[in-house]
């Protein structure tokens, strides 16, 4: 049950630009167990979506550096060439729900056919078999089979998002990357999608990587939490520990900016801006905004493990302590 599904080691993804490489994913390592959900949180521009794209290898053309190891079921999928990756990994073992995807359905093709398409491509099923399987997946996500014959405009925003999720599930992947899966939806619709995700991950023993900037929402699914800042993971922790008391100064500050509905708290915000990813400082990247900055922070800290499932990239947690 507790076996490792995805193991990412020293992953780098830099984009080429006129002003120099943008270090969107800068030396990232983490692990996800089978059936676990990892919430990847951080502010826009911190590299969360780039990390997802690096894992599922959906890359633009302006790549400067793309290296590291991504072990899926123990096998390093970074070693696969593009055609093998497409055959063995993408949408077969790892699929994705992209941001604002409910608007990316083709308006002139019936919903059922669009959900069936991955099956025809990746499992070489004929159209009829694929369509039948697509209908099953649609009913799994709460859309009645009759809707397979409808066009996207006949579906509400929430139903379209369910259809997109069906498209990601129809090939029975082991891991689904959800990039802001509910960001354009209303509160009640969002809660409905979250209920659906809670249900299917249990019934299918699925793993999710949930990418979001909405921290309260991330706690709806997360078993583990990774906080990204300026292209790096600064904290990786168990959800039970993280939402009660985050450890890294950035995570802790971020949590003080999350309003709560049921209790009063003093809201705070983080002054200043994150560094540019073109030329990030060689110091700790959060140091210029950090309330606990001290001498050691001029040096980039490694990740310290206090417990087996916790890693914090901050000198405050080094074994010898703060000098």
């Amino acid at each position, binding site marked *: 049950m507790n076996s490792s599904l995805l193991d990412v080691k020293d992953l780098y993804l830099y984009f080429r630009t006129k002003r120099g490489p943008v270090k969107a994913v800068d030396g990232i390592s983490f692990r996800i167990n089978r059936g676990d*959900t990892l919430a990847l949180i951080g*502010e*826009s521009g911190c590299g969360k979506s780039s990390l997802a794209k690096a894992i599922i290898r959906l890359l633009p053309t302006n790549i400067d550096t793309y290296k590291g190891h991504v072990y899926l079921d123990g096998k390093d999928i970074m070693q696969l060439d593009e055609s093998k990756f497409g055959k063995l990994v993408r949408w077969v073992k790892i699929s994705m729900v992209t941001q604002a995807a409910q608007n990316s359905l083709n308006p002139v093709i019936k919903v059922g056919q669009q959900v069936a398409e991955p099956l025809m491509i990746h499992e070489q099923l004929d159209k009829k078999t694929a369509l039948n399987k697509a209908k099953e997946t649609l009913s799994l996500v709460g859309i009645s089979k009759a809707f397979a014959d409808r066009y996207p405009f006949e579906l*509400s925003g*929430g139903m379209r998002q369910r259809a997109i999720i069906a498209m990601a599930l129809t090939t029975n992947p082991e891991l689904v990357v959800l990039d802001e899966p509910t960001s354009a939806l*209303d*509160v*009640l619709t*969002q*809660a*409905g999608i*979250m*209920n659906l995700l*809670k*249900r299917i991950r249990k019934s299918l023993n699925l793993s999710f990587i949930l990418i979001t*900037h*909405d*921290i*309260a*929402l*991330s*706690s*709806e*699914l*997360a*078993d583990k939490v990774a906080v990204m800042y300026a292209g790096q993971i600064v904290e990786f922790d168990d*959800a*039970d520990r*993280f*939402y*009660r008391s985050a450890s890294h100064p950035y995570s802790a*500050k*971020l*949590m003080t*900016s*999350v*309003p*709560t*509905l*049921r*209790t*009063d708290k003093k*809201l*705070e*915000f*983080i002054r200043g*801006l994150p560094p540019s990813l073109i030329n990030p400082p060689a110091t700790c990247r959060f140091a210029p905004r950090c309330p606990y900055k001290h001498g050691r922070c001029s040096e980039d800290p490694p990740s310290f493990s206090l417990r087996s499932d916790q890693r914090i990239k901050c000198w405050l947690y080094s074994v010898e302590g703060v000098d």
Partner: protein
Amino acid sequence: MYVKAVDDVSFKLNKGEAVSLVGESGSGKTTLGKTILGLYKPTSGEIIFDGKELWNSKSNDLMHYHQETGLVQQDPFGALPPFMSIQRVLTEPLAVHKIRSSSEKNERVHKALEEVRLTPVDDFVNKYPHMLSGGQQQRLVIARAMILDPKMIIADEPVSMLDASVRIEILTLLKDLQDKHDLSVVYITHDLSTTRYFSEWIFIMYAGKIVEKARTKELLRNSLHPYTQALLKTIPDPDPDNRFKPRDIPPGEPPNLVNPPEGCRFHPRCIYAMAGMCNQKEPPEFEVEKDHFASCWLYG
């Protein structure tokens, strides 16, 4: 065919107070905001500002009203013309309202930028919107809304495009401006959890109607309308136990406003719906407790 986007809505907003208009998309909250701003002429009804009815007066007065009200839009980048420098973005409303002396213009631009903390001002005046971060762009939009020294600000989802920390920064800024200038603020949002911290009143909208009105703390502690109760139940606070619990959601979707259901508009989704009552007669507004109103037959 008519879309009854805002249907029989009444409320009062006091000087220096902020009200949150909360509702889902299509509930009419933005239409209500634009009507309050005088951008739409209401089909019927009155908007009384400072004792004067808006649409019964001469066009001069409408111009004057626009001077006294400011709008903060949802998407700051979309709301700022990309080809205008900050100086021009801020002097445009002054030109429209015939403030022509260049010393006064400069003084106002300086003051507005200082108020939203885009300082040192001289570093910013000649920049263009794309050179600013999302949070800075939104502060510029607020500076533009403030430049004519308004008495009221309508902020339509002012932080929904921004990150957690920047959200709080912008909302704190709006609150400071509200306190400092004794501004009235209409904060249009779908995000109930921020309303707790940034407004004195909450009005809940559903399908073109205000279904519940109360002071913020009272509404969150003691919600009366079944729709408000359903809404509150679906909003998570950060808590690791959330992942084990599915949330209660009312069935169905909000009605089509071309042809809304008879009676109470929420009755097809309501667990307390009483046959022969809720599906026939539209509930009026009941003052259930002092300053706490609900449009629901449970309280009739």
